[in-house]
């Protein structure tokens, strides 16, 4: 099971829900949620794969106005492990209610900051011991960061105005490296050709993937060709 590439999807709500489901299946998680604010388009997005009854109660109780996994976590640049929020009253109220739906306190929220003041909050949870949670978190955290930004970027770009403002802008180095990769060179080949370290090449590729909304380097190459940013010989 691989996580779906959202940039290829029409971005219907069902696809976003499917994205959350595959993230959970791939990474041994129970539930996932996304909430985002796009101040340019003045839109708010939210979707979750929590049980319907819990979603209903959540809205009825107005938890979105005091949920610390959203509101407090939004002020961090680092992923916020919910253990950090446990002493807040609002956290205890929320999770006392959530407990009846099999939703545990072990979870984390990844805050995403976009270039236009847009904020995305991607959160995941898993019912397990704190120790197990710690191990799982360490294993999946880097990947979760990438998925959170992929999801957020695609939601933000689903709005016509933001899409018009956010055409990918690669640096000269990123373009040069993608051009060599498109010509079939390996990462080490490119490092040797440009006389820079292998890891510098890797960092520029990672940045290119992020800017092009791609999950893999091949997708990034394909998209860069499609946008006329690089030209295969």
């Amino acid at each position, binding site marked *: 099971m691989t996580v779906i590439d959202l940039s290829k999807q029409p971005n219907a709500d069902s696809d976003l829900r499917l994205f959350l489901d595959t993230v959970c299946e791939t990474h041994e998680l129970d539930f996932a949620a996304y*909430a985002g*604010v796009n*101040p340019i*388009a*003045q*839109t*708010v997005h939210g979707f979750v794969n929590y049980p319907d009854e819990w979603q209903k109660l959540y809205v009825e109780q107005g938890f*979105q*106005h*005091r949920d610390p996994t*959203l*509101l*407090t*976590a*939004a*002020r*961090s*640049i*680092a*992923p*916020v492990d919910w253990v*950090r929020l446990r002493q807040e009253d609002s956290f205890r109220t929320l999770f006392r209610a959530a407990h009846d739906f099999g939703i545990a306190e072990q979870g984390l929220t990844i805050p*995403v*900051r*976009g*270039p236009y*003041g847009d904020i995305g909050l991607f959160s995941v949870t898993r019912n397990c011991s704190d120790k197990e949670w710690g191990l799982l978190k360490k294993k999946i*955290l*880097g990947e*979760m*960061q*990438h998925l*959170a*930004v992929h999801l957020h970027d695609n939601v933000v770009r689903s*709005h*016509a*105005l933001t899409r*018009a403002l956010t055409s990918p*802008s*690669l*640096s*000269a*180095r*990123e373009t040069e490296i993608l051009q060599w990769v498109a010509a079939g060179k390996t990462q080490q080949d490119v490092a040797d050709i440009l006389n*820079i*370290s292998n*890891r*510098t090449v890797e*960092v*520029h590729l*990672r*940045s290119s*993937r*992020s*800017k092009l909304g791609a999950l893999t380097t091949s997708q990034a190459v394909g998209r860069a060709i499609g946008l006329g940013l690089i030209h295969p010989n």
Partner: protein
Amino acid sequence: MIIVVDGLNRDRYGRLLDEMFALRARVFGKRLGWEVDIKDGKEIDQFDALDPAYVIGVNDNGKVVSCVRALQTTGPHMLSDVFSAILDGDQPLRSPTIWESTRFCVDTEALDRGKTRNSVSYATCELMAASLEYAQESGISDIVTVIDPIMDRVLKRSDCAPYGYVGKTTPMGKVPAMAALLDCSDERIEKIRNFAGIEGNVFMDEDAAAALADPVAPEIDHSLFDAIMSAGPQPDAETRNMLEQYCHDQASAAQSRDELHAANRLAGVLFEAGMINRRKPKFFVC
């Protein structure tokens, strides 16, 4: 010892932050002569308003002796906004697993030479190791850091040489500045720790942190986020009017055919997005 102050706990550590801003004023304003804004002896810029994470070194007397600031590269940060000269007008890196580190400094007046725990060398290495460990703990694998050539030499001498650079070395006041790349790997952290003889956990425990907190802890202000979250899906009438007025002003102020086309294109995009009512008001003359 090291403490991390971020948007979640900054309301509790006003005193530490004030000392940190004062240290930055002495280092970047006076010693390095960078063009920074200093008010009331504190150096604070627009990025400090974005809830960055600060990794702060504190001595045994509870005084701030070192600090560095971290921001995500997916959103606004210094290389994308104000240090663009270093990138020679080129685009900055953007990745969920790369952070930018800026304003790295240590208090050379409060610390001494030599290699003891109270030395410049130890405090520098402790802060470097701590910031890499904090980033690694957050799922970050690389850091792009804005430094001067002196700091670059310090990194190389401390067995922590950057594995690469982006952009070029650019004058930034009395000294030039550059953007270096560091991996947040166990290997690099180990090398720094070995170099300075740092053992055990460098981050202070909850009790030590509580002892440094301000006397009264005010509630975190959620009002702004709440206001945005409850703003609703589409612009209200007033915003629509302002956007339409803006499009009108852009079109009227156009000096050339290209500018007029650009203004009309913007109006078109806003209209397509359902954010203004009229695509081409009567005053738009093409």
